[in-house]
Structure formats: structure tokens, C-alpha cells
């Protein structure tokens, strides 16, 4: 069948996903982008955010990833994610709770001289927001 390619999603701990898909949308570091069959060879860095997948049955799957990399060539696509969770595996309440925590920690690091902690808090907040977005289906 035309229009499909293989997508594999792996984290340091395990393989999360390995199927043929029709389309995938990714949170690139330089903006969101979509990938279809026969995409030119590409390596891209990903921000924490939402990965949207349309599989070969045209079912939409949403996944929250915690940043990572994307690589595609010869219709073999691979996402190297720091973490990856299916929307169905994320509890909305816990995601909200985590987002609140990340926000308050961020607020506590605003004074100068805490750049490293602030960067870390900001990354945590980004991850939390991504999970929340994926969980709430928006």
C-alpha cells in the first residue's frame, strides 16, 4: 500500500512503538513539522511536546515525549525520546498536579544566579505542559 512508512519510538529504557504509519507530526526544536512517506533523509532535535501519529488504519494516536531526536531515511523513521507516554497512559489529574508543581518551582528561580536551576525548571515545565496537553486531548 502506498503512503505508509515505518515508525519506531524508543526511550533509553525500552521500545515504546514500532509500526507502520501514514503520517506523524513532531515538536521540532525549530517548530512543529509533519512527516509523510518518502521524506528526505533528516536528523532533527525535538523539544518536549506532543507527537501525533496517524497509523495505517488512519487511527490517530497522541503521545507525550520529553525531548529527543528524530531521524528518517529510506522510509525508516526513528524517534529517540527521553521519555514517551501514550495519551491513554497519562492521568489527567497527575499531569495537572505536576504542571502546578513545575510552575511554582519556576517562580522560585527567577532571581539571577540561578540560570542552571531555571533552565532545568523550565524544561520540567515544558514536559509537564506537553503531558497535560496530550492528556486533555487539546
Amino acid at each position, binding site marked *: 500500500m502506498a503512503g505508509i512508512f515505518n515508525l519506531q519510538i524508543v526511550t*533509553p529504557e525500552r*521500545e515504546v512503538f514500532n509500526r507502520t504509519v501514514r503520517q506523524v507530526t513532531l515538536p521540532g526544536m525549530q517548530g512543529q513539522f509533519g512527516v509523510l512517506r518518502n521524506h*528526505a533523509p533528516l536528523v532533527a*532535535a525535538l523539544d518536549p511536546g506532543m507527537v501525533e501519529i496517524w497509523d495505517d488504519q488512519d487511527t490517530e494516536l497522541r503521545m507525550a515525549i520529553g525531548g529527543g531526536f528524530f531521524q528518517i531515511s529510506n522510509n525508516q523513521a526513528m524517534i529517540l525520546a527521553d521519555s514517551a507516554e501514550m495519551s491513554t497512559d497519562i492521568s489527567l489529574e497527575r499531569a495537572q498536579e505536576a504542571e502546578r508543581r513545575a510552575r511554582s518551582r519556576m517562580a522560585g528561580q527567577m532571581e539571577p544566579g540561578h540560570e542552571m536551576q531555571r533552565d532545568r525548571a523550565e524544561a520540567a515545565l515544558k514536559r509537564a505542559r506537553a503531558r497535560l496537553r496530550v492528556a486533555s486531548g487539546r
Partner: protein
Amino acid sequence: MASLRDIKRKIRVVKNISQITQAMKMVAAAKLRRVQERVERGKPYSQTMAELVGTLGPNVRGFEHPLLAERPVGAVGIVVIAADKGLCGSYNTNILRLAHQFVDRQMRVHPAGEAGTTPEGLPRQSVRLMTVGRKANDYFTRRGYAVERAFPSIGDQAPYDQVRAISNAITGMFLTGQVDEVYICYTEFVSALSQHPQAVKFLPIEPPTATETPEAAGQSTFGGNQEFTFEPSAPQLLGVLLPRFVETRVYQLLLEAVASEFGARMTAMTNATKNAGEQIDSLTLVYNRTRQANITKELLDIVGGAEALRG
């Protein structure tokens, strides 16, 4: 000679011990299998990561990154990975002896007075110690070494956020300029029966361009000989890739150390069970001999008494 009751009690004790060691052996075997599965499951990630570094390397010339920075070495950081628990044969002894020698050697090579100062102008320690596993911390603390940070062993569960915390602490002391080199003492997993303690240089990372020729990079399963588009540019990509590369290296070393621990424990417990079995055998022999001796003695008494009556 011990009484029959004493010997019987002793046999029972040894039997109980052998049951416990047998159980511990099974547990260690199961956990070893689980850790090996983890290593397998992590492979797609770490392999692709290494491939990516290989693909990017040739595209980047004169690349500089804080994690690659070679500095004149005045101070070193040493990370020692051991177990939380004992009863694993010579696993802890071997790695800690090696680490101890290594630490002392580094202290001789880098005397405290020549360590220079931190970017904030504070005097630096020439050797900074970090430990993973309670036994490592106990060992060095008891001998009067200052342990900078002590983490518990990651165990067979090996939660990745714990790995990340350890990795951050290691790279942190290098990036903030507290040390100029980092070494890791861990036990290489050769097989379930054989483990090899060693100290490896961990930071700065060897520049990936030095090991990868363009030809070798072209042969990766993904690459073929195609031209990749990089987004953002290759140097920027490498910049975000390297910290993760380091993290997966830490993960691998930690997992390997844990696998070695369970391998060593399995062997130790197999031996303990075997020894207990031998002891039961020899105790049973003593028991039977003593019983026979008692019977003979009683018989002699009876016969002697009967003779006396007749006479």
C-alpha cells in the same frame, strides 16, 4: 564428643541456612535475568544514539563543547560503583580494593596543593569522590575519605530518573570546573560467572570525530550514503546530543555493574548451598557414628550387667 541432640540441632541449622542460600540464589538469578533484559531493551536507543553521533561527527569540524573540553588536569573526580548489600562473594571487595588503590594513586599524582581554584576562586580538592551503592560509601567513609555525594545502588529496577540524577551529578562537577577529568570505577560484566572490576576515563568524552571516519559513518544502517538534512545545524544538534550520549553511557555502566553484582551473588550463593550440603553430609555421618557408639556402649553395659548377675 557432642551429644546426639547437639548434632541433630546443628544439622537442622545448616539445613535452614542452605534453604536460605538456595532461595537467595534463585532471586539473584531472576534479577540478573531482569537486568539483562533491561540492557537488551535499551539497545535500540543506545545504538541509534551512537550512530547519530557517528553521522554527525564527520559533518562537524573544529567542534567545541564543554563536555569535550580537555583541560590541564589539576583535580579529578572519581565515581565508585558498588552494591548496597553484601553476600555477593568478592564483588564488593574486588571493586573497592581497585577503587581504593586508584584513588590513592590519583591523590599522589595530583597533590592537594596544586589543584588550583574553582571559577569562584575557592581552593579545589585534588580528588573528589562520588559513590553509588551503600557499600562503597561505607568503605570510604570508614577510612576517612570525604565522599562528596553518595547515591544508593540503582538495583534491578534501575529507574531512569535515578540514573539521570547520578549522571547530572557526574557531569555537573565536570562542567562547573570542580574537576578536570572524571573516572568511573565499576565492574564489567563478562558473564554470569566472570566479572571484571576496572577504572575507565569518563570525561571529557573522546571527540566522536576522532574515532569515526566518513566511510565508517556512511555504513550505518540508517545512513546508507545519503546526505542528511540537519535541523538545527549539525554542530547545534551535536551540542544537544552529547549530554544524552553521556547519560546513556552512565546508564550502561550502572546496569553492567548491577548485572555483575547479581552474577557474583548467584555464584556465591551456589557455592554456599553446595558447602552447606557437604556439611550436612559430614554431620550426618558423625550423627550416625555417635548413635552407633551409644548403642554399642549400652549393649556392653547390659551384657556386662547380665554376666555379673549370672556370676
